[in-house]
């Protein structure tokens, strides 16, 4: 669902919420070979990011004009070197940190903020709901990429700015899904019974709504991570995100692009990493969804 943030195509129905439901979902997920492989690869990359300083053979910042653009397999540069003579392997390993960060953080932020907005809108209903959702709709008037670039372009280059822009981009779709699921849950009898016992709205949300609503929103949010990774690296590719000399996969694609005629295959590697992470997240998310889809 890259770059589309389509909430309409797969309508999010509130799943049956018995406890033990999630346990069975994860049991089913464990039996899905594709999802498991994807999960393991992701785990490996995350570990690589965490232990980067110990795994990388060289510093990602040390340049060497003598050894510019070495091909793959050169001595001392197992995956070649970039246009400033830095070891590509080390940069790739260190790059995992930044790239994962700018890919995942916006979705986490948007999950928190978007869920809050959507749940409140869905629970309160009525005119407040309409007003809130209309404001959200305005952001939907922009294609995601355009919005991200517009914001990042206006705010200026930099990591924080691109994190902010991407968070803003992902809040509307998450809010929409949150509102939709909350509206479904809200009209169920046990919520009315809770109101009948005199509980205040906040209490009802906390004890009755959240547990039943956060699950589907979370699953939807996971499907956005791959889009986020591509967009975030894309922003760096345009020079709007991470700035040189930071090791980040998108930025590496940008800076090495001019060398495409001299040392083509080295330039491919960072993109390969983005692709791998993105596809793994997608497969995990798909697996999660189909594990939830089983008729009980």
């Amino acid at each position, binding site marked *: 669902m890259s770059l589309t943030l389509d909430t309409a195509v797969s309508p999010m129905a509130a799943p*049956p*919420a*018995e*406890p*033990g439901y999630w346990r069975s979902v994860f049991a089913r997920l464990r039996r899905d070979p594709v999802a498991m492989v994807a999960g393991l690869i992701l785990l490996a990359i995350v570990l690589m990011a965490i232990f980067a300083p110990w795994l990388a053979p060289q510093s990602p910042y040390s340049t060497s004009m003598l050894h510019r653009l070495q091909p793959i397999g050169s001595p001392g540069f197992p995956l070649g070197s970039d246009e400033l003579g830095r070891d590509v392997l080390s940069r790739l390993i260190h790059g995992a940190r930044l790239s994962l960060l700018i890919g995942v953080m916006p979705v986490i932020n948007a999950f928190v903020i978007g869920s809050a907005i959507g749940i409140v809108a869905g629970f309160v209903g009525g005119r407040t709901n309409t007003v809130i959702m209309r404001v959200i709709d305005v952001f939907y008037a922009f294609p995601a990429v355009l919005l991200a670039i517009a914001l990042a372009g206006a705010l200026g280059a930099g990591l924080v700015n691109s994190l902010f822009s991407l968070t803003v981009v992902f809040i509307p779709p998450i809010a929409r899904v949150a509102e939709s699921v909350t509206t479904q849950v809200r009209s*169920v*009898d*046990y919520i*009315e*019974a*809770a*109101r*009948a*016992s*005199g*509980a*205040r709205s906040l*209490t009802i949300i906390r*004890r*009755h709504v959240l*547990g*039943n609503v956060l699950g589907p929103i979370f699953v939807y949010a996971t499907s956005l991570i791959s889009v986020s990774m591509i967009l975030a690296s894309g922003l760096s590719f345009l020079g709007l995100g991470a700035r040189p000399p930071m090791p980040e996969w998108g930025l590496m694609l940008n800076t090495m692009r001019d060398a495409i005629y001299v040392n083509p295959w080295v330039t491919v590697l960072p993109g390969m990493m983005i692709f791998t992470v993105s596809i793994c997240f997608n497969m995990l998310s798909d697996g999660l969804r189909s594990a939830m889809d089983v008729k009980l």
Partner: protein
Amino acid sequence: MSHQARKEDSRNAAPLVTSDPRDRGGRAQPLLRVKGLRKHFVIKRDLLGRPLSRVHAVDGIDFEVRKGETLGIVGESGCGKSTTARLLMHLLQPDGGEVIFDGDPVGTRGGLSLREMRRQMQMVFQNSYASLNPRMTIEESIAFGPQVHGVGRREARQRARRLLDQVGLLPERFAQRYPHELSGGQRQRVNIARALALEPRLLILDEAVSALDKSVEAQVLNLLGDLKQEYGLTYLFISHDLNVVRYVSDRVMVMYLGKVAEVGDSEALYRAPAHPYTRALMSAMPSLEPGRRTQTAPLAGDPPNPIDLPPGCRFCPRCPLAVDLCRGTEPELAALPGGGHLSACHRADEVQSAVSNPQPSVEESV
């Protein structure tokens, strides 16, 4: 205004409700009094959002519930009985009218607050499964209400376990279970326990037994009877099942299209209905006697459209006794001679005396 003489009822003998410390006004004062209750739903709006057409789900009803009695409310789907229940609990905002609980108006300044009202009036819903949060244990669900009103966690749980015992579910076995692990009848017992956890004086049962198998229904009805005796409760029993209503109620109220058609003592209503609609309902009840079969369709005409109401009496299009007066003027809910029995029909006394297809009393039909 409606005026009812008090009547001592021999069947479900009301226990001494005056022993409740919250009681005000003693037995003479009705526990619940409803005046002009009104609720409409907008179904079509114009371009600017202004309402174009409405459904008057509840269109100005008046009734009383006396302390210690069981008032049954019957009617077809769409007559407004469930809406009334929700209006009483203030789960829906009334568009007009008053609700007076034991002399105190509810929801207005100086009267009973909503929160206080909910400590005295509770409801059991029809859908036993949907009424319980699937992610909470039975004990947690029951304890939730008291906790909301300040009862400590441990005490609330103890209360929950006591109540489980009272409704016939062993606390050791059921307290930690989840709703999906219980049968329909067991869940309804839990719902009753949950409603009682707040120690209410009035319990609204909105089709509470309708979804249960007959044998289970009987058990739950018996339980309700026992609880009523024990706690000195007052019941508002809403159902579409006329037999059950007759069995449990002291008085019965018949609703049609958002208004009260008839109110009266249970036996009297069943035996000699004073409204054509009630009469049609009674004759539609399948009889246990092979000799008495329904020869003609009890109700003619199309089911009503609650949006485009005809002027005059709402029941006109289907009423076999309709005359011009009925089509022109809407009848008021008025008392019949003898007191205690009210009907909203211009020709009520004729209907009452023309008992052509009466429902014999329970004893007679066996």
